[in-house]
């Protein structure tokens, strides 16, 4: 496989059953595409976490862990960026805003969406026309410079 991040968009589509563990298939595919695009190792690790968390969210919440319901992962290589969309069947609606991270007591879960928001450059939660939920994420090959680094350069 050769991926040229400067040419017209190319896409990969993967369908997963809603069974925990299959998120690793999407994680592996995202890693392979990002490696071919030339992403750095730490950005690839960030991407892998974002993809697995979004898939787990789709499996557990969007599809209510119904193994017959499908999670669809789209990886789109565009100019200098990788777009990842993860869609479920919407058996349960996802909140349109990122919930407050972590839950006190209990099992200390609820960090998934927070991690995604910290790992990628852009993130959007959408309700699809067919009723499903979709998490759309974009990670840039060269992350935007922060205000601090621009000031240091000037």
């Amino acid at each position, binding site marked *: 496989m050769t991926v040229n991040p400067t040419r017209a968009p190319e896409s990969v589509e993967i369908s997963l059953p809603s069974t925990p563990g*299959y998120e690793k298939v999407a994680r592996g595919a995202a890693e392979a595409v990002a490696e071919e695009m030339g992403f750095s190792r730490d950005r690839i690790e960030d991407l892998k976490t974002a993809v697995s968390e979004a898939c*787990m969210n789709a499996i557990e919440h969007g599809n209510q862990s119904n193994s017959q319901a499908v999670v669809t992962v789209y990886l789109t290589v565009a100019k200098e960026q990788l777009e990842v969309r993860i869609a479920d069947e919407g058996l349960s609606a996802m909140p349109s805003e990122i919930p407050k991270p972590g839950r006190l007591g209990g099992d*200390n879960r609820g960090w998934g969406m927070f*991690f995604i928001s910290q790992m990628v450059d852009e993130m959007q939660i959408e309700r699809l026309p067919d009723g499903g939920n979709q998490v759309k994420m974009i990670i840039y090959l060269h992350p935007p410079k922060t205000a601090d680094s621009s000031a240091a350069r000037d």
Partner: protein
Amino acid sequence: MAKGDVLHRQDGTLGVLDFPRDVTMQTRETAYNAYNELARAKIKTLAFNFDQTDYMNSAGIGLVISLVEDATQAGRRVFAFGLAPHYRKLFNMVGLMERLALAQDENEVKAKSAEPAKET
């Protein structure tokens, strides 16, 4: 699909939890069984061994938070070793780095656990 149990070992008052390759929701039961065995053995120091771990999701990190909370409340010192840089970053994001001490390996845990605990 996730595989792997958490195993436990004891060396004096040090208890070690050996985590598998995948640390997820499915790890929870064997992690608590292993931790409870060590707690019954009245360990004073708990170490998390992540040498074999290459995938830890938010549910797995939530599990680590719960174990650290329990161990800390019981007055145990908590260490982790073998943690990959990416997971150090995630541990930092959830505040775990303030609640456990990192070590390079088990030998360093043994050396550090022999030192008096620092006041926080």
